[in-house]
């Protein structure tokens, strides 16, 4: 048995933690007692709930989106920064660091946009023992109305200026937390880098209204009949976060050590963020949903995967997926795949059939019994005709004593599912879009298989260059 992969990280020039799993600045890191329990559960670091001049919060504060019977696919909050006095938070940071010297404690900070205010809070946080500072330029609700949070993060000049003030004073690494509520996240990432940031955290929450109560007509969360836009997070935002992480990491002017945030709840999520270049990940919603204990499998699962892939440290695979992301114009136009339906696995739900007809390219057919007919739409029985034929059938309850059961009535179908319900792909028409495989509820029942197009790889850029060249030569 090879030794366990080493998950320890040294992030952004000096923040060390036993693993890359940090709790994001949020309710799970509200106080020292919580952070210590989190460390006991296995978390490698914690970004403290944002410290600043204490605020008053409202009740209620959260709302969520359920999907298909699953709770909290996405979570929204209108809670502000810490409502506890600065000195209490700093005293508790001191206590935590004394007892957990090897874990990372990062102070998340937000004060009014004055140089002295930032100098003061930076000095006090570092005196308390924080291993690093995270500048909260991302909070999208409430604080932004007071000129802080995303009000700073949406203006590159402010971001650069305040980062600069902090760097004048800071002795520990400075991370800037980016807001996604901006057209191009790279503009602010570049500003943070220009301002001297040692690292970035992304993404903060996304502006959201999660839904409206259809009885009261008030959006959620309801505060005395009214609501306010909040910050959206949880599994729903992961794809958005991954895209922004990739954008930042692929841009030389933005590129900095990055702590990935947004829908991380499992080791697989974490691996994906790291593969796109993140050095650590931060978790909030999953911990709010299931508690600190989820980190156990994040550690265990990531180690098992690393062992299987032969990676020994986080650095061994960090960023390995970045070269696989290209601009569309550089993708190979001559790569062709088609859908193959594996009859032995098909359960006959025919979701691929209806998806292909209504949502794709009309190349999946129910004609295994009636006779195969390749070609355009006109040659085929359409969905409405299939349904009408079913409705016209007379069905009765099978009752043995009333039905003469013929001896040869046994299922002679080659598959468990009746042949008439197993769809067929017309490969000449299939464009290889993946939709059928995506809707199929059975794993590996529909696979996308490469077919040789007989053509050398060629991208759009190459193809249009060739055409332009041809025209010139004419």
């Amino acid at each position, binding site marked *: 048995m090879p030794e366990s992969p080493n998950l320890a990280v040294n992030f952004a020039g000096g923040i060390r933690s036993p693993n890359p799993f940090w709790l994001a600045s949020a309710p799970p890191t509200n106080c020292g007692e919580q952070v210590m329990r989190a460390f006991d559960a296995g978390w490698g670091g914690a970004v403290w709930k944002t410290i600043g001049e204490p605020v008053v919060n409202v009740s209620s504060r959260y709302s969520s989106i359920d999907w*298909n*019977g699953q709770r909290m696919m996405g979570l929204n909050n209108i809670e502000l920064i810490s409502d506890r006095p600065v000195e209490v938070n700093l005293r508790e940071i001191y206590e935590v660091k004394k007892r957990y010297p090897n874990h990372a404690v990062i102070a998340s900070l937000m004060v009014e946009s004055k140089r002295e205010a930032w100098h003061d809070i930076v000095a006090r946080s570092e005196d308390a023992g924080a291993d690093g500072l995270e500048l909260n330029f991302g909070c999208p609700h409430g604080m932004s109305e007071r000129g802080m949070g995303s009000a700073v993060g949406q203006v590159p000049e402010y971001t650069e200026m305040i980062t600069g003030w902090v760097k004048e004073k800071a002795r520990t690494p400075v991370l800037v937390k980016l807001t996604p509520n901006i057209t191009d996240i790279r503009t602010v990432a570049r500003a943070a880098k220009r301002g001297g940031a040692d690292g970035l955290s992304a993404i903060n929450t996304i502006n959201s209204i999660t839904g409206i109560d259809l009885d009261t007509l008030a959006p959620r969360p309801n505060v005395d009949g009214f609501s306010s836009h909040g910050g959206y997070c949880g599994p729903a935002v992961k794809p958005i976060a991954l895209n922004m992480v990739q954008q930042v990491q692929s841009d030389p002017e933005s590129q900095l050590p990055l702590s990935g945030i947004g829908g991380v709840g499992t080791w697989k999520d974490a691996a994906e963020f790291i593969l796109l270049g993140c050095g650590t990940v931060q978790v909030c919603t999953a911990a709010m949903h299931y508690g600190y204990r989820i980190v156990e499998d994040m550690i265990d699962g990531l180690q098992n995967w690393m062992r299987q892939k032969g990676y020994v440290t986080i650095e061994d695979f960090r960023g390995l997926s970045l070269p696989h992301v290209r601009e569309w114009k550089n993708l190979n136009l001559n790569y062709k795949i088609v859908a193959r339906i594996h009859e032995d696995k*098909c*359960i*006959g*739900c*025919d*979701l691929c*059939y*209806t998806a292909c007809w209504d949502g794709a390219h009309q190349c999946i057919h129910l004609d295994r019994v009636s006779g195969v007919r390749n070609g355009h739409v006109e040659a085929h029985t359409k*969905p409405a005709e*299939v*349904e009408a034929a*079913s*409705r016209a*059938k*007379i*069905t*009765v*309850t*099978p*009752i*043995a*004593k*009333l039905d003469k059961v013929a001896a040869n009535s046994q299922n002679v179908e080659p598959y*468990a*599912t009746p042949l008439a*319900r197993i769809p067929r792909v017309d490969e000449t028409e299939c464009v290889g879009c993946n939709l059928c495989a995506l809707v199929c*509820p*059975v794993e590996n029942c529909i696979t996308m298989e490469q077919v040789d197009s007989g053509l050398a790889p060629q991208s759009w850029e190459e193809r249009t260059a060739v055409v332009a060249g041809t025209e010139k030569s004419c």
Partner: protein
Amino acid sequence: MQSVFQQHPEVAERFPDLHPPLTAQSAVIEANRCLYCFDAPCTGACPTHIDVPRFIKKIANENLRGSALTILDANILGASCSHVCPVQVLCEGACVMHHHHEPPIKIALLQRHAMDAFYASGAVLPKTSAERRNGKIACIGAGPASLACAAELRQRGYDVTVFDRHRLPGGLNTYGVAEYKLPTADSLREIELVGSLGVDFQFGTEIAGEAAFANLEKEYDAIFLGVGLGAMHRLRIPGEDHPAVIDALAFIAGYKTAGRLAVGRRVVVVGAGNTAIDAANAAKRLGAEEVQILYRRVETHMPAFGFEYEHAKQEGVRFLWQTQPIAIHADTDGELRSIECLRVELAQDGTPRSIAGSNFHIECDMVVPAIGQSPLFDLLTECYGVRVEHGRVVVDRVTGQTSNPKYFAGGDCVNGGREVVDAVADGKRAAVGIAKVLESAHA
């Protein structure tokens, strides 16, 4: 009207729901398990072709009224079907989840969830915009076939009168289904719904004699025969006229609707069909200490559905295979004492043959014959020109029309005794057939 069970809560307690209803949240979770198949096999397996994925999706989307109306649009008796359908061999049996190594979607419970919500919210059907049409139809019998036929015709704008010789409507839904499956009250509220459409009911009205049918023919443009089957077969053995010999349907109707809640201490049920099992289970719940089912053949031959057999075993009913009753004995005081039987051997081809001299007695104080119903030969011969073969009315399967074009038929009198849902499907098909004939006549 208070049902017998509402008057006797201590007995009702012993007839709890066989399958307790879903809660609102569990219904949504279960509904979300549904894959929403295209041209779904469950829909194809339902004789009334209820669009199952559609009504389930509406439950998932918390559109319970839309869900209920989807069900009712296909099957006006959607509520009772959700209780009594043998879904294991119908919709749930066809669920693709079986191939997915997962339990099928609980279609019956979801259907019931939607229907319960519909009745709880006042059971208001949308106003049909159909204009009144010329045409009067008489439906004979107020069981599921006639109810479905009447509702469909009424919704299409025709005048419909339903005749039934019983005091209560519903046919076997009211009189013949085990209470733990379908409470009488639930059957009756469903018939009120049909009534709310404007269907005229004539209860306690027996149509009998050629003259009566001739009169009907004069008064009505079409006649639907939803008469079901006749009396239960007799055992044809000595002693069966004893008052403690009560056939299964009379026994079930007695406890459900007539307040006859007394039952023997040791009960023998003869026959192993679904009705035999309903009777045996009811006898257990009504307080019988010992209930035994006698059957000539063996387990694999029994006509009852497998899940009914399992249910009976769980209720504590004993099964005696290869047993042929030959006489019922009373003691000198006239009390029923025993049923005398012969052992049966099965020939190679499965034919049962009783073994001479193998006589034995089973002590009991009540015998419930449950060996099927006989056709209503007399009544059917009174309908002029309606062809009957093997005791079943011959119809065109698609339209329900008999050999006399004025008569249509459906349900048990046509199919020999299938399920409620089959009767509903027959009735609805016949209604469409009748409407077509009347439309062309008045065109």
